[in-house]
């Protein structure tokens, strides 16, 4: 595989990209990102962070920035609908005014293209993530970032209505989709966001999402990233948390040929509560890879990470959970668990905790399991006359409920439960 050729292909696209915003700064970001892109390289499986995840299939295809969709499309079926909310819709990564409905009364939603040079400091901060976190995909996202949203909640503001960001992907074939979201929750404020990523068709596409979540002092954010993709999906989530802030993050990967989620959470002060919940399903010969990193920089904070996976057919799951506890971060509580159920003998999971603990007075625990559905539990259910397939569904529900019951939005809970059932129905090989 000639990685150089692939880079040249995207490099040329970036160079020819017309920046739509009012700001020449975006032009600058594009140019500097292009330079960075040119000197970065695509990872191979020799890379420790990409050991189990081969991106060759992604690089073998050529993706292009999509054009704005003019046709009327039915988006209803994709929306979580049964509650009042604000809605922002993107189709193939391009903001769609006509389908979006939002009335931010007490917070701001701003399209990247509407920024001007007055917003320079804001923009610079937004794009300037520290060097160590950058990788070729995040650089690519910045370089292509013509589209994106700033969601800004001022201090002392509770945003009651959840905000749903609906991304409908794969309307056109070979779309390159690179939205970037910056979410800031001010002091003593709260916000709920549902990032709802769906596929329109069987087209192939490449989504490269970038989420920047910042929680100011004593703020609260519930964030659901729900992926029901069909093709390639890369998601980078950068989380910065200040004193007494509280995050409930849900990384839900339901489907996708190739999914890689990189998430990094920095707990930069004391008394922070960071809850990372993950649920991933995979089938056929799909790949789902979750790499997470939790950094405890200061004392007295808690992180609680639970990722659960259900895999069938010949699918492959990867979990790598890093916890870093800095020398001064005494009295840290860091908990991590990764549990996996394999529904077929050809499915597999590579799971690895990575603990780097430099403080001595901390409570850290981690655990990982890969197994199949418990035979004794299955026997119990079947002994009540319940057939095998329903018994399996019940047991998967039981397995996932630790995550699902933490979700406050009923629509999402129902959706996940039915997706889990579908996984069994669609299961291709019926081996033991």
């Amino acid at each position, binding site marked *: 595989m000639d990685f150089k050729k692939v880079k040249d292909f995207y490099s040329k696209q970036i160079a020819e990209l017309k920046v739509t915003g009012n700001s020449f700064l975006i032009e600058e970001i594009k140019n500097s990102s292009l330079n960075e892109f040119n000197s970065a390289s695509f990872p191979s499986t020799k890379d420790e962070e990409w050991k189990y995840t081969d991106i060759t299939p992604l690089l073998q295809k050529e993706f292009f920035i999509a054009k704005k969709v003019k046709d009327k499309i039915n988006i209803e079926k994709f929306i979580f609908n049964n509650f009042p909310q604000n809605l922002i819709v993107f189709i193939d990564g391009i903001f769609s005014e006509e389908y979006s409905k939002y009335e931010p009364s007490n917070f701001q939603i701003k399209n990247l293209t509407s920024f001007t040079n007055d917003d320079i400091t804001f923009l610079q901060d937004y794009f300037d993530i520290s060097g160590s976190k950058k990788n070729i995909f995040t650089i690519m996202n910045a370089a292509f970032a013509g589209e994106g949203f700033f969601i800004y909640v001022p201090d002392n503001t509770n945003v009651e209505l959840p905000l749903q960001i609906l991304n409908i992907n794969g309307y056109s074939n070979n779309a390159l989709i690179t939205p970037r979201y910056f979410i800031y929750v001010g002091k003593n404020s709260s916000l709920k966001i549902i990032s709802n990523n769906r596929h329109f068709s069987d087209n192939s596409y490449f989504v490269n999402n970038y989420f920047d979540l910042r929680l100011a002092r004593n703020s609260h954010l519930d964030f659901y990233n729900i992926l029901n993709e069909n093709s390639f999906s890369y998601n980078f989530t950068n989380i910065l948390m200040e004193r007494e802030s509280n995050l409930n993050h849900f990384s839900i990967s339901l489907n996708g040929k190739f999914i890689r989620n990189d998430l990094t959470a920095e707990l930069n002060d004391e008394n922070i509560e960071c809850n990372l919940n993950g649920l991933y399903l995979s089938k056929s010969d799909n790949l789902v890879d979750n790499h997470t990193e939790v950094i405890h920089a200061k004392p007295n904070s808690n992180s609680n990470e639970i990722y659960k996976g259900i895999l069938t057919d010949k699918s492959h799951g990867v979990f790598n959970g890093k916890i870093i506890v800095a020398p001064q971060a005494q009295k840290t509580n860091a908990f991590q668990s990764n549990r996996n159920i394999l529904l077929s003998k050809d499915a597999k999971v590579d799971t690895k905790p990575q603990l780097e603990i430099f403080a001595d007075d901390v409570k850290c625990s981690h655990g990982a399991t890969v197994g199949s559905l*418990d035979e004794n539990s299955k*026997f*119990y259910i079947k*002994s*009540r*006359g319940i*057939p095998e397939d329903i018994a399996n569904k019940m047991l998967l529900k039981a397995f996932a*409920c*630790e995550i699902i*019951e933490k979700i406050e939005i009923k629509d999402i809970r129902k959706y996940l439960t039915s997706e889990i059932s579908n996984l069994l129905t669609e299961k291709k090989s019926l081996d033991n």
Partner: protein
Amino acid sequence: MLKIKNLYATVEGKEILKGINLEIQEGEVHAIMGPNGSGKSTLANVLAGHNNYKVTQGEIIFEGKNIFDLSVEERAKEGIFLAFQYPVEIPGVTNYSFLKTALNEIRKQNNLEEIDSKEFMDLLNKKMKILDMDDVFIQRSVNQGFSGGEKKRNEILQLLMLEPKLALLDETDSGLDIDALKIVSNGVNVFRNKNNAVLAVTHYQRLLNYIVPDFVHVLSKGRIIKSGGKELALELEEKGYDWIKG
């Protein structure tokens, strides 16, 4: 109703049951007693069709049919019910939906329509009253976080709801205080009628004060070494198992 002929069974290659013969008629209560490890739970599991247990010889005839080829759920639908020694917890699945799913599967077998919700709730409330169970159990996840006694009560609730022909009770008295034991036993006695039967597997005689057996069998090392009437249970209680061994 049930005829067990010269039954041998193994678990993980180890022979546990070594030639069991037992016959149970409608309306009867049989007790199987025996020391720990004698194979009581194994027998119950073999009858219910647990696939860890392999029948290597002999046969089980239930309602005139050899059930060797029947799966666990098919046996349940035919009317065999096992109240577990250690009931399983199923988080995220409510007692309500679990019981309703099970009941409808069994009704399907008997060519009955799905039960409607109102009728189901009436039935459930009636049965729960017998067991002195609180309404909150309806919406709680199956056995999750239940105390030992609550789990046993829940087993008997399922028994009362599903109304099988043959109830296998595996150590149903274990973990129960005397009040709970009375309630649970009463549940079993409510279940009993002239068309069904109970096979109670127990280590102790205690349960048999409340669920009075017609026959008592002593299981030792995978064989029934003695059978008798209900007095045999009292004798065992008094003298222990040693006196019949040998």
